[in-house]
Structures are given as structure tokens and as C-alpha cells.
């Protein structure tokens, strides 16, 4: 797609013009993103690289903090898997129903993205809370009150709600490009619906699913509102730990250390996923 065309308004071959078009954006990126992020990971207020390194070290060895990292990863992985298991079939359905239905279903799936995370998470407090819907349901069934609020399960539920639309969109973009005849061909050749799904539909939609998984995983690792409201004081993950380091214990170098670990975690996963998809496309 690389085009050696000239820009309409101005001769882009002239360096000065190009420069003028790019520089404001780059300057803001530098001042509002690269500089602060780099600086904060090394030179937080009240700290220096040595304190950040020490705090990072303790984050990776402290018996009270390792569980936070483990929980963050566990919550993100489980959320990603559930989103895949639920989101892929929905995307598949949307890609195979007649257009007048698919448009409506897609809009319904996308709609939650227009609401902020507090709005989307708030309902779970009503569902999972002490006197909540679920509790009265289980009590009504004679199972006793259910206590799901402030558990990992609650966080996962909230995150699944938050990120399912992303998974559906990613899978849908792959599935809608797939020729539905491929699945028919497999069925015609004697493959059961399950076999056709496993051997043809799913493998071909894998790139989209992989993108979806990466988005959901990164989102789950970095989400704040949902773990804060649904995990409460009991179940901290990296993002809520970062917040409490800044606003409860006012320990800013320690906050930088958490930020460092969180960033590295997300970067490693994105790199792995792009590696995987590159490998998939060369095969």
C-alpha cells in the first residue's frame, strides 16, 4: 500500500512541509507520552532509578505482593478464555445469520462500548451484593446466601462483561471474511458440525481470535474500575495496587515499580501474540 504520490495541497517531496505536518503530533507525543512515561519508570518524585529497582525487586519477591501478580495474570487469563468461549460463538452466529439480523445483533453487542466502565460494572453490585439478586435467588433455592462480591469470580464476571464486545468484534472481523461455503464444503465431505468447526471454521478465524485474546488480556491486566468495585479490599490486582500506592500509602516510587511490571507484562503478551500471528501467516 506504499504510495509514492505527492500530497495534493502541497508538494510533499519538500521536506519542510512534511516536517511541519508531522512535528506537532510528534511533539505532543514526546511531551505528553514518551517523556512522562520514561521518566516516571525511572525517576518518580521522591525516588530515583535505584529506589524503583529496589521496589520492583520487592514486588517480584515479596510474599505479600507475588500473589497480586499471580492473581492479575490468573484473572486476565481466565477472563480471556471465557471471552473466547462466549465471544467466538456469538461472532460466528452474527456472521452467519441474514444481514437484517446481523446488523441488529452487532449493534446490540457493540452498544455497551458506549457506556463508561462504572455504569457497566455498577449493575454487578446489585446482582452480586449481600442482599443482591443472586443471593436472594440461591437463598430462595435453599442454597443459602451466595457471597460472590469481593471475590476473584466477581472480578472475572465484570471483566468478561466489559471485554466481550471486543472479542466479538475481533472474531467477527475474521469470520465475516470467511467464505461460508468452506464450512458447507466440509459438511458435504462428511464432517460433522463439530468437526467442521474445529478443523475449518475455527482455524481460519484464528487470527481474529488471537487479536481479540490480546485485546482482552491487555484490557483485563490494566482495567481498574471493575477490580476496584468488585474485588474490593480483598482481591487486589496490579492496577488497584498501583492506585493504593499512589493514593492510600502515597508511596510513589513503589507505584512506579508497579507501573513498570504492568507495562512489561502487557508488552510481553502483545509481542508474543504478534509473533504468533506472524508465524501463523507464514505457514
Amino acid at each position, binding site marked *: 500500500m506504499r504510495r509514492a504520490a505527492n500530497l495534493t495541497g502541497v508538494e510533499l517531496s519538500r521536506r519542510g512541509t512534511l516536517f511541519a505536518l508531522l512535528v506537532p503530533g510528534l511533539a505532543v507525543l514526546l511531551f505528553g507520552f514518551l517523556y512522562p512515561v520514561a521518566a516516571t519508570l525511572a525517576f518518580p518524585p521522591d525516588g530515583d532509578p535505584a529506589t524503583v529497582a529496589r521496589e520492583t525487586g520487592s514486588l517480584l519477591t515479596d510474599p505479600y505482593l507475588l500473589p497480586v501478580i499471580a492473581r492479575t495474570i490468573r484473572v486476565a487469563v481466565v477472563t480471556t478464555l471465557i471471552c473466547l468461549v462466549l465471544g467466538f460463538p456469538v461472532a460466528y452466529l452474527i456472521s452467519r445469520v441474514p444481514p437484517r439480523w446481523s446488523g441488529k445483533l452487532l449493534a446490540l453487542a457493540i452498544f455497551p462500548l458506549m457506556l463508561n466502565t462504572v455504569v457497566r460494572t455498577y449493575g454487578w453490585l446489585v446482582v452480586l451484593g449481600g442482599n443482591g439478586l443472586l443471593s436472594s435467588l440461591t437463598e430462595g433455592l435453599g442454597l443459602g446466601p451466595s457471597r460472590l462480591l469481593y471475590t476473584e469470580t466477581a472480578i472475572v464476571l465484570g471483566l468478561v462483561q466489559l471485554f466481550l464486545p471486543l472479542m466479538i468484534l475481533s472474531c467477527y472481523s475474521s469470520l465475516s471474511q470467511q467464505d461460508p461455503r468452506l464450512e458447507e464444503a466440509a*459438511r*458435504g*465431505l462428511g464432517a460433522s458440525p463439530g468437526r*467442521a468447526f474445529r*478443523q475449518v471454521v475455527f482455524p481460519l478465524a484464528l487470527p481474529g481470535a488471537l487479536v481479540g485474546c490480546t485485546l482482552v488480556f491487555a484490557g483485563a491486566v490494566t482495567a481498574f474500575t471493575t477490580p476496584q468495585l468488585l474485588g474490593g479490599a480483598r482481591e487486589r490486582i496490579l492496577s488497584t495496587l498501583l492506585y493504593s500506592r499512589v493514593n492510600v500509602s502515597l508511596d510513589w516510587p513503589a507505584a512506579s515499580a508497579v507501573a513498570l511490571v504492568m507495562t512489561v507484562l502487557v508488552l510481553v503478551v502483545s509481542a508474543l501474540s504478534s509473533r504468533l500471528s506472524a508465524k501463523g501467516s507464514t505457514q
Partner: protein
Amino acid sequence: MTPVVQLESVSRAFGRSRDAVAAVSDLDLAVPRGKFTTLLGPSGCGKTTTLRMIAGFVQPTSGRILLEGADATKTPPEKRNIGMVFQSYALFPHMTIIDNVAFGLRARGLAKTEVTARAGEALELVGLSALAGRKPGALSGGQQQRVALARAVAIRPSVLLLDEPLSNLDARLRVQMRAELRRVQRETGLTAILVTHDQDEALELSDHMVILNKGRLEQEGAPRDVFPRPASRFVADFLGYENFPVLPGHGPVAIRPEHVRLLSSGEPEDAGVTLEATVTNVTYQGSHCVVEVNANGLGDGTRLLCAHPGEAPRPGEAVRVLLPAAHLVTLGEDAEAAR
């Protein structure tokens, strides 16, 4: 001998019940064993829906479908033992050629050695053994279609379904592939059903031709029976009859342009109908000219087309036109009224 595929008053409507559109209505069909049958018709005539109902991808709204004499109306596609070739080839892009061909065999749980042997055999049949290890993306359209054919044939289906398999190919390749299709069908002895809108393709390939119009069966039979004797104006029109004059004493008839003759003065008249006419337009077509004339005798000035070899008359010239009796097809009044 029971027909391989039999349709008993099969109908299929699409859309909600209130504004449903019938794609196929009340179709009865018997597909003879070991023969090449063609479903022919313009787009929207229901031929593809019929094929997809036979394959099991579409459920009939009413009626029964029998495969090998047994009711298979509710049988899912994978249990029907059909081989299907799609217009878009539908090769699995993530599998090699040989894996594509072996897919159906593996789905049937055959032993590894048998899978390898039969897949290789099928690929041999279409002459693509050399490309076994490639991915479909690396193949040309014609090659991909031959792989699709091999894949369908490999499972030794009770019927081979071909859904406009050649229409994505360019004109020359299409002609080559027709021969290839015919050869493969003959060599394997498979029953084949081809869906096409191309009359030449249908005429060349089929043992049995079924012409559909608006979801209904219009005419069926061997090409050499159907082609010279279309039963209705629709069939005649579709088969390339371009002149539909209403002759005094004959009623509505059809005749192909190449059978209309311009008589030079003094030439003896053959058996047939001779008309006085005026040339209105002449188009040069290489081997012949198409001469458009206005037949003076036919009241409202019926225009006729005739394919005329050699020196053509000029527009405005008065000519005599012969419609030979041997080539005049009389169209049934009822068929005419149905239009």
C-alpha cells in the same frame, strides 16, 4: 433401477411466511444413475436452491427428497455422501492440496494408508499429483477447481454436485475444464448434477437436461431432444431461438437466426414459409452477417434476424425470406398463454 436422487413435489420459500418468496415450487425430479444431469436456467430460477436442498444445506419447506430410494429430507449434509464442487472452489486455505483432498476421507475415519492411497488417486485423476504439498493460495483458478473436483470425487460420493463450477474461470479455460469434467465423470462413472446458466455448457456436458423457470420445471430430456424441440417460448428463448413470428396458418413459432434464409432472386423455394421483407439493419460478425428485416406480410411488421453468410444486402433493400419447415418449431398455445 432407482434414481440416485429423487425429488417429490419439493418446494422451498424464503423470507417470513407473509412475504415469502418461493424459490422452488412443487418440483418433481428423478436423476438417472451414472448420468450427467444439468439444471439449467437463468439466475433466480431456483436451480442453486434445488442443488443445495439435495446437498442438505437448505431444508425444503415441503416435499420429500430421496437419496438412493430412501427418504433423506432431514438427513444432515455430512450423512448424505455427496461430493460438492462450489463456484468459489471453497478449498480450505490453511491445508495443503493433499490434505484438502483427504479431508472427506479422514472425516469418514478411514485408515491412514487408505486415505493416502485414495487421495493420491483422486489427485492423479485430475493430473495434479505434483502440487500435493502446496497450499491452495499458490494455485491458479483452474488448478484450484480441479483440486475441488478431486476432493469431491475422492470420497466416492453417490452423487457429485457441481454448483456453477466453471463460471469463475476465463472463457478458454472454461472450455478446457468442460472436457475435463466430462472425462472425470465418465472415468469414475459417477452420477453428476451440474447447475449452470450457460446453455452451451449444458448441451455439451449433459446426458439429461432439466430447464427451470421461476422455481418450476419447464422441460427436461436429452439435449438432442430438447434443443431442436423446445416446448415453450421460455425454453426456446433460453436456448437461443431469437425469432418468434406468428405465422398465418401456423400460429406462434420459433426459429433460430442461422436457419432463416435470404433467397436470391430466382432461387427455388424449399418447403417452408416465404415472406416478403425489407432489410432494416446489417451487422458484420466475421463469418457471417446478421441481417435484420421487417417482414411486410405479418401485419404489425414483425422483425426477424437471420445469420447470412456471404454478401449481405443493404438496408432498405427488399428481400425474400425463407423459414424452412424443417426448422420451424411450433410453440404450444398454452405455453404461450402462460407467459
